[in-house]
């Protein structure tokens, strides 16, 4: 587990050909690790008949809605489960 709860992380903005479970609306956005869920098989290989191994760390990442949607004017948050290889340390 590279990241820990409370750490600021940025979701990689990269494109990805094929199945992946990182929604486009959080790509490039900065959020906070709320929890480490543990490790799970990787859907990007599992979905093509692979075994999904090695398992990857999965994090619950919280984002301020105003950081995700420019017009969002409340202090609400959105939480997304993101696999480790989509995250990088933010400042």
């Amino acid at each position, binding site marked *: 587990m590279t990241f820990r709860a409370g750490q600021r992380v940025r979701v990689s903005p990269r494109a990805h050909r094929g199945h992946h479970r990182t*929604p486009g609306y959080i790509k490039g956005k900065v959020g906070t690790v709320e929890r480490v869920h543990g490790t799970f098989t990787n859907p990007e290989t599992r979905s093509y008949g692979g075994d999904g191994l090695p398992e990857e760390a999965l994090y619950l990442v919280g984002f301020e809605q105003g950081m995700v949607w420019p017009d969002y004017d409340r202090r609400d948050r959105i939480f997304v489960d993101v696999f480790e290889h989509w995250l990088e340390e933010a400042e």
Partner: protein
Amino acid sequence: MSDGHDHDHPHEPITSDGEPAAAARARALEALLVEKGIVTREDVRRGIDWLVSRSPADGARLVARAWVDPDFKSRLLADARDAALELGLDPGPSPVVEALENTESVHNLVVCTLCSCYPRALLGPPPAWYKSLPYRSRAVSDPRGVLHEFGVDLDDDVELRVHDSTADIRYLVVPRRPAGTDSLTEDELAALVTRDAMIGVAQPEAPVAA
């Protein structure tokens, strides 16, 4: 009737007797999987039977127990799979089920923007709107507007937390216990807990006095 478009190969009309295209595709996929020996028709039948045998009554039992038993609520919030097993309920195949508690200051809403992930074991099959593109896109970008359309208007000081089920975790909302329900039994309380309340688009209400 013409087939409505022109191109350079002939084929039968794509639709058959009003069967939705997705159903026809699912049937074709099933036939292929059976032919290749990956699943049997019996596997598919058992899977469907399991799915339609599930009901939000199970989730409602978890919520009602949490309302009357604070220790159980703590265990439910810590590990909803274990809590379901404790009540003899089937938490399903997902490795992690997480219960999200609504409070005076926090309201939770669940969506799956990428497909239709849903705690089927505890809530049964998801409603059609949960799988619709408008819900999946607007629940993340305009969740207060979506809630308003469902008849839920949150106070300004309540934080709305949207949970997008993108991976292996399944989320279930524990709604707030309505006022005026102190005299109700656990079973009567469970009857107030709807599927929609456990998705986060409704708030349980006390029964109207007879």
